[in-house]
């Protein structure tokens, strides 16, 4: 446990090595929120308007909720694993007395803590500037369910990143290509980062909800808003838990097969 604590500390400090890079990354996050915020603010300019099952307070809470949930779920370092695999750097870790999965999960947690701190400051600043109506959830059961959904989201995203990073075992040159397709495009589109999934037609919603992506952002924020409760909440959490199980088993199979073909090129 102590060694992972040290990894956490080192990884946390490492984030400050390229300060300008980090600050610019955070500026990017704020700007991405602007487009989403103002689209919805324009659509719901009339406070009494109710469409897609939301009113102005709920939709703007959704947008602000995205800021925090993104920092918690999508801030990760595990995408660097593909580089380790492709460059042969993985060998350095295989010979050390550390669990490679735990090592990267620890680094992910350190990245999340740092990003969460900054996201909270940005949240407060934007809240003061934009003064949106906001739903402060006070129901303890809902908050607990929200936290459980976040834990599932964090694990699902970690497993997705590791699975993607396993592709270079077989095809080293598409490490970044696969990350672009899945984490930059598909996750952004299907996770609910831009808009709540339920504005789409029912058929499309059902297809998207059957994938792991909406359980990263959309589902936790909807739980926070209290839009999902009772059996629907239980069912949603079960689907998220199932995705954790399926992805975990799949990752173990893929990783073991990958290690067998791994040739440590360049390592």
């Amino acid at each position, binding site marked *: 446990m102590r060694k992972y604590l040290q990894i956490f500390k080192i990884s946390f400090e490492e984030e400050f090595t390229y300060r300008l*890079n980090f600050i*610019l990354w955070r500026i*990017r996050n704020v*700007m991405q929120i602007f487009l989403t915020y103002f689209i919805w603010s324009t659509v719901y300019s009339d406070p009494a308007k109710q469409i897609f099952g939301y009113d102005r307070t709920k939709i703007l809470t959704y947008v602000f909720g995205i800021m925090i949930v993104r920092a918690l779920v999508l801030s990760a370092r595990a995408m660097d694993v593909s580089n380790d695999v492709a460059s042969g750097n993985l060998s350095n870790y295989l010979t050390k007395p550390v669990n490679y999965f735990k090592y990267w999960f620890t680094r992910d947690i350190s990245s999340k803590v740092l990003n969460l701190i900054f996201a909270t400051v940005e949240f407060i600043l934007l809240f003061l500037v934009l003064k949106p109506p906001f739903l402060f959830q006070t129901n303890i059961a809902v908050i607990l369910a929200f936290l459980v959904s976040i834990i599932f989201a964090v694990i699902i995203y970690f497993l997705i990143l590791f699975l993607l990073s396993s592709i270079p075992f077989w095809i080293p040159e*598409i490490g970044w290509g696969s990350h672009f*397709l899945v984490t930059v495009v*598909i996750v*952004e589109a299907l996770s609910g980062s*831009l808009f709540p999934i339920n504005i789409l037609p029912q058929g499309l919603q059902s297809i998207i909800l059957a994938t792991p992506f909406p359980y990263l952002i959309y589902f936790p924020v909807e739980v926070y808003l209290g839009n999902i409760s009772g059996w629907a909440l239980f069912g949603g959490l079960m689907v998220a838990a199932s995705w954790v199980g399926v992805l975990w088993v799949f990752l173990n199979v893929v990783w073991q097969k990958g290690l067998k073909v791994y040739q440590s090129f360049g390592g």
Partner: protein
Amino acid sequence: MFKKYFKIWWMMSRNSFSAVLGQKLALSMFLVGKIFRFIFFFLFLYFLLKGTGSLAGYSGNQIIFFFLTFSLVDVTTQFLFREVYKFRPMIIKGDFDLVLVKPLNALFRVLMGGADVIDLITIPPLVVLTIVYGVSLHPMMSGVLIYLILLINGFLIATAFHIAILAFAIVTTEVDHAVMIYRDLTNLGRLPVDIYKEPLKGFLTYLIPVGIMMTTPVKAMIGSASVLGIIIAFSAGILSMLLSLKFWNFALTKYTSASS
């Protein structure tokens, strides 16, 4: 002069295309990703406008035309200026020296040295879609003409931004996030800047002229831009180009050739 540089650009582009086409799997992933991202935002707008009818006083087709104009400027500049994304290693390793000693304009080489075939593939269908939606708005001939001129003005501003990013990279060695911040800023132009509130709206219209690049051409075509707005747009185009070239020349004096 123009012929010589076009020949060089064509040669560099062919090399760049060959390099990308050699990795077909990676190319298909990026291509699918870009098409998927476009379709998904298009669908989002379609279903949003189906529910709301209009946005910020614009009809559904007008909003989609704003988005298509944004996409056209965005994709074309990425096609032409992809080399900018690869500038950082050149600065860090000192390889920029090799560009400076060649009898070729260094800015031209680092700005346009690697056209992107993936973006090139997406341009023709995008142009067709833009024409289809543009025609559906029943514009006057003069409106179309001013739209096209302002679109070129938008490309000029986008070029100025990329030159400034290159100069910034020389001064700070930071380019990756700078170029992505530019992308994020221009992304705010996916929809008319009228949806933003002041001071952000003014910021996006005049200081970082995203509105002039993407919103003004469409507004001029549908007849909702003022003459003063159009004059400001052209002034911003010329001014941004002059300033970015000045910044580039200043940055060159700060280049240290580190690591070479």
